[in-house]
């Protein structure tokens, strides 16, 4: 009988459930979109090299997302790099440093203030950054690799095999270097999010990098770097290895002596980065959920409103039912069922609309589709709950209708 009443008022029932439909649809669409976006970001950042971590020393006031080759104090000596390479669970470790240039020249054009990331040839492989043209640089050679944006930053595009001139900021000395490879756009941690399309220049430590210090452990003059890029033997090994690196650094390293007061060692993994992104996106989700709750409340009010109208309209019918033996509970059930059906209809329909919307959006901005089945279950449970919540008072007021008054009702 509840069903008949809903079908009997198709337009009204649809409008009534619109609040629930929109609420549920919005949540499902945004959750799908959010999950897809997150999956895309995580893919971009972590890619296939989730076993990589960055060792750095930075003050706590610095942002928590590391910029490769930049920031942090240069405290890691060659000795430290060699020692870390020996640590159990470490597969490879390369030092990463940076050189500031005053100018970079190509043919007749020049670009000011570029940061050159210096490391070892394995750097690209470790980071999972592909070289799309040419090859990586060789140590000891005056060779550089540009990323795509860097290759395009001059008046004319740089191609593999040509020379560029780097003017060091420190002493104004020009160095000629051959471009031996073009790498895909940077994936320097959060750089992929914020400035992934920025030009980057990569060079071997030898002969470009000249920053040295006396290693406290060996008493030798050694190159010193701001970061070490480490890969673990497997993803499972990341956490224990992270711990072993930290304890090496704090107990025995050169860096421990060299680092400034107030600076702390950090071993950042992609896991942590991904966690941070997840945190951001769960804030987003909480926000959406808030909106959803509001629209569900509005939806519930809509259902309650129409149910109250319906109770008044059907007062006579209620009286008839009571006259032929309906108990309060029967009437209550009837109206509650109607409200629950309205809520259920709203949430199921809303979920379908939501997933279509989410799908359309992911196709439109070219994201991998990620569906959260849990949210469907939640939607389908929440719909009838909204119905119960909205229908409770109208159903109660229907059940307490006085049969004599109701039968007299026109």
């Amino acid at each position: 009988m509840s069903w008949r009443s809903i079908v009997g008022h198709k337009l009204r029932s649809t409008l009534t459930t619109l609040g629930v439909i929109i609420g549920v649809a919005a949540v499902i669409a945004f959750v799908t979109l959010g999950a897809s976006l997150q999956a895309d970001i995580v893919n971009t950042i972590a890619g296939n090299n989730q076993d990589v971590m960055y060792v750095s020393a930075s003050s706590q006031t610095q942002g928590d997302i590391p910029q490769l080759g930049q920031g942090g104090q240069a405290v890691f000596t060659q000795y430290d790099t060699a020692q870390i390479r020996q640590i159990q669970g470490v597969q490879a470790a390369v030092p990463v440093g940076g050189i500031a240039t005053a100018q970079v020249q190509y043919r007749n054009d020049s670009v000011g203030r570029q940061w050159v990331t210096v490391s070892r040839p394995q750097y690209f492989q470790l980071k999972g950054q592909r070289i799309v043209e040419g090859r990586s640089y060789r140590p000891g050679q005056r060779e550089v690799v540009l990323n795509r944006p860097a290759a395009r930053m001059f008046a004319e595009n740089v191609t593999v095999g040509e020379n560029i001139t780097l003017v060091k900021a420190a002493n104004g000395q020009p160095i000629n270097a051959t471009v031996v490879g073009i790498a895909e756009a940077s994936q320097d941690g959060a750089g992929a999010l914020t400035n992934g399309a920025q030009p980057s220049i990569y060079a071997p430590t030898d002969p470009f990098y000249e920053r040295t210090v006396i290693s406290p452990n060996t008493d030798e003059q050694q190159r010193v770097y701001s970061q070490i890029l480490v890969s673990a033997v497997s993803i499972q090994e990341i956490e224990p290895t992270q711990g072993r690196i930290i304890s090496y650094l704090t107990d025995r390293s050169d860096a421990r002596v060299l680092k400034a007061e107030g600076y702390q060692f950090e071993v950042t993994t992609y896991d942590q980065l991904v966690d941070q992104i997840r945190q951001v996106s769960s804030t987003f989700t909480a926000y959406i959920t808030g909106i959803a709750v509001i629209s569900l409340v509005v939806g519930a009010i809509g259902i309650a409103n129409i149910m109250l109208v319906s109770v008044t309209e059907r007062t006579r019918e209620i009286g008839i039912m009571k006259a032929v033996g309906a108990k309060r509970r029967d009437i209550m059930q009837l109206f509650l069922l109607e409200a629950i059906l309205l809520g259920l209809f709203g949430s199921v329909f809303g979920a379908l609309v939501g997933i279509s919307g989410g799908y359309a959006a992911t196709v439109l901005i070219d994201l991998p589709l990620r569906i959260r089945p849990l949210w469907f279950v939640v939607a389908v449970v929440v719909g009838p709950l909204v119905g119960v919540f909205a229908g409770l008072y109208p159903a109660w007021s229907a059940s307490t209708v006085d049969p004599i008054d109701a039968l007299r009702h026109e």
Partner: protein
Amino acid sequence: MDAHTDGEGSTEDAVVSLSGVYKVYELGEPVPVLDDVSLDVPRGSYTSIMGPSGSGKSTLLNLIGCLDTPTAGEIYIDGTNVTKLSDAERAMVRGEKIGFVFQTFNLMPRLTALENVAMPLSFRNVPREERTKRAKSLLADVGLADRVDHKPTELSGGQRQRVAVARALVNDPAIILADEPTGSLDSETSRQIMRLLEALYQRGNTILMVTHERDIAEHGERIVHVLDGEIERIEQLGESRRTPSVDEDAASAGEDAPEGEAWTS
């Protein structure tokens, strides 16, 4: 349809018994509507209630039908004192022992004739199959076998009232309460309904009917005259009671009543 196994017509066996019933409405000052009413309705009897408008006939019937509760006094229905019952228990009595027929039919507009007749059973958790079976057979009894799937708006007034009578019978009630059952019908359709009630009476049902019209009231074995909330007198008709055109059985009243179909909507 055999409502009573013990229905030998023993007048000592009252299906409905009222003693000292008062009904007072509080409207600023108390308005007495029923004033010390005592009445016994024997099992298997046919009783009419007459009286001027506002004399309290409907109020009396609603009290007997457990739709309302008396201000004072006792009402027994089929041996149960219903004045002390809870809301749910009174609903149960309505469902099990009372069959209502109203002047305005009071059918559910969105339900078909069949569903209307079957509805009271659904409140007693009778399985659907049995509900349908019983409703069908009752509709056939009142001559509406070919109208089971019609909505009330697709039926004539007389047909609607026959659906209402079928519905009143569906729970095999101890008593049928009819409040001006012919009040909205023309004289020919009224006659059909009276034939239907006569048939029910002949089969042993107890009927209590409120009416304005003397000739309708005369179908009962006796007429209870109500005036200003009091029973003025009880008139025994005995042999002089009116029986509707004996040549026709109520069971066939619908099937061969072309006159009634004249204003089928």
